[in-house]
């Protein structure tokens, strides 16, 4: 199947727009001049707790005048966007020839302490029951990584610095300013050793991709989406720093495609530690070496493998259920040579990678250029 149109809203505090308005905005842009779709799939997670509408997909499609279409909602926490793409992919192999995937979530309807409580529902009950903050597991894992591999805090800080440096060029990014690694250490502590600069900003966003079975006017080919369920609690993981379901989803793709030899990756960096765990679990870097590899420039725009030229969740922003759709749009635009931020010149193959929490589920999408 093929990505033929994409649309994104800048991730931001959109106080004046609800979930519906944000979603409708990108859907209309992606559908401009398009003569109907077979399905609308809305990818969203926190919106169930933040906006007064169930069966949102149908209500949205109806208000978009998409008479006769079919619509539904797919939720898989922070991986909702790619989960929707996986369903779209199944539909496009069957009776559908055009599916619109709209990712949307708002994180600013509530005061942030309340949003933190909503975010903790993405994790297993041991986090939400104790009201101890959605960043607590990330803090535990980051310390474990630093102590196990003897990596210092400043080395870890190169990830957010790289993300900010990339996001500066992305018009859809929420945080468009550079920061030095030293500044990450000086920021407010969030879940020590994590500071506020290690995590994503609370912002609202929406993105849409139009997927078609035919390649006409395509930006890129969406070759396949794979996924797997993992241990719901990090306490169950054999190694809490290794995201088993991500390795599994990636292997499922590797059996069929050369996904190890891609030219760019947009991946899930809800926290600095998540980015490192994702890189290592997919085998894109050796265990315990990702932090140093980031610091050495290996994943920089001009490095060996550019990762998150968008600025990632850290700086582009992370509107939970929408993020995977942003990633798909970004990779497709890169492969078409038309990403409006930092371009990865000559990129022919790319991956989008989403995880919920630290691995209750994991998704990998593989895209190829069509030029």
């Amino acid at each position, binding site marked *: 199947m093929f990505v033929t149109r994409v649309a994104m809203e800048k991730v931001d505090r959109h106080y004046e727009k609800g979930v519906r308005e944000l979603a409708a905005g990108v859907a209309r842009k992606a559908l401009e001049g398009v003569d109907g779709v077979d399905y609308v799939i809305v990818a969203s997670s926190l919106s169930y*707790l933040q906006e007064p509408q169930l069966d949102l997909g149908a209500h949205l499609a109806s208000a978009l005048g998409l008479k006769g279409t079919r619509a539904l909602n797919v939720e898989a926490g922070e991986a909702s966007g790619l989960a929707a793409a996986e369903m779209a992919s199944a539909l496009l192999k069957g009776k559908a020839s055009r599916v619109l995937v709209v990712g949307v979530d708002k994180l600013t309807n509530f*005061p*942030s*302490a*309340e949003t*933190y*409580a909503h975010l*903790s*529902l993405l994790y*297993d*009950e*041991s*986090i*939400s*029951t*104790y*009201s*101890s*903050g*959605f*960043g*607590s*597991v*990330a*803090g*535990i*894992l*980051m*310390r*474990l990584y630093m*102590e196990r591999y003897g990596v210092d805090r400043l080395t870890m800080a190169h990830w957010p610095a790289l993300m900010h440096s990339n996001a500066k060029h992305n018009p859809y990014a929420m945080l468009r300013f550079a920061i030095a690694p030293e500044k990450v250490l000086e920021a*407010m*502590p*969030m*879940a*020590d*050793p*994590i500071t*506020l600069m290690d995590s994503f900003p609370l912002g609202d966003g929406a993105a849409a991709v139009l997927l078609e079975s035919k390649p006409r006017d395509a930006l890129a080919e969406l070759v396949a989406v794979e996924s797997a369920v993992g241990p719901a*609690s*990090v*306490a*169950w993981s054999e190694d*809490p720093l290794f995201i088993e379901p991500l390795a599994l989803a990636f292997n499922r793709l590797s059996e069929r495609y050369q996904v190890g030899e891609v030219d760019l990756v947009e991946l899930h960096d809800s926290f600095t530690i998540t980015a490192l765990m994702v890189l290592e679990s997919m085998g894109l870097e050796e265990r315990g070496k990702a932090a140093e590899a980031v610091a050495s420039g290996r994943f920089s725009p001009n490095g060996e493998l550019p990762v998150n030229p968008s600025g990632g969740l850290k700086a582009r922003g992370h509107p939970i259920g929408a993020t995977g759709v942003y990633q798909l749009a970004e990779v497709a635009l890169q492969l078409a040579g038309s990403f409006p931020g930092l371009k990865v010149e000559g990129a022919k193959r790319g991956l989008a990678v989403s995880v919920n929490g630290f691995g209750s589920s994991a998704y990998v999408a593989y895209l190829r250029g069509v030029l």
Partner: protein
Amino acid sequence: MVRTPPVVWRSRVHRYRLVGSKCKSCGEVYYPKIFSCPCGGEAEEVELPKVGRLISYSVVYAVDEESRDRSPVIVGLIDLGVTRLVGEIVDVTPEEVKSGMHVEAVFRRIGEAGERGVIVYGLKFRPVM
């Protein structure tokens, strides 16, 4: 929020007694509770050991509204031998807490559940002297 009294009530046993699951086939132990083991075995409830070792921890400032008055909250990954769990660490300052510490379970107030003010209790962990 969604922690209404019935939800709090249903989780009481696991919070009060530290009850996890043990696989009847392979003996593996899980917390929180599971329904079936990946080995295919059925799970039964089992009370977990009350002492363990801190594998790693975090000092959390960005807590939910309900925990604001006790911020920062220390949360740790604890090795209980038969299994691990994520739990709260109390009676220790952020300066004193260290990976590798031995800890034991204690009964403490967790907070109030939502608008209705149901007071929730459960087990937390403190350093063993």
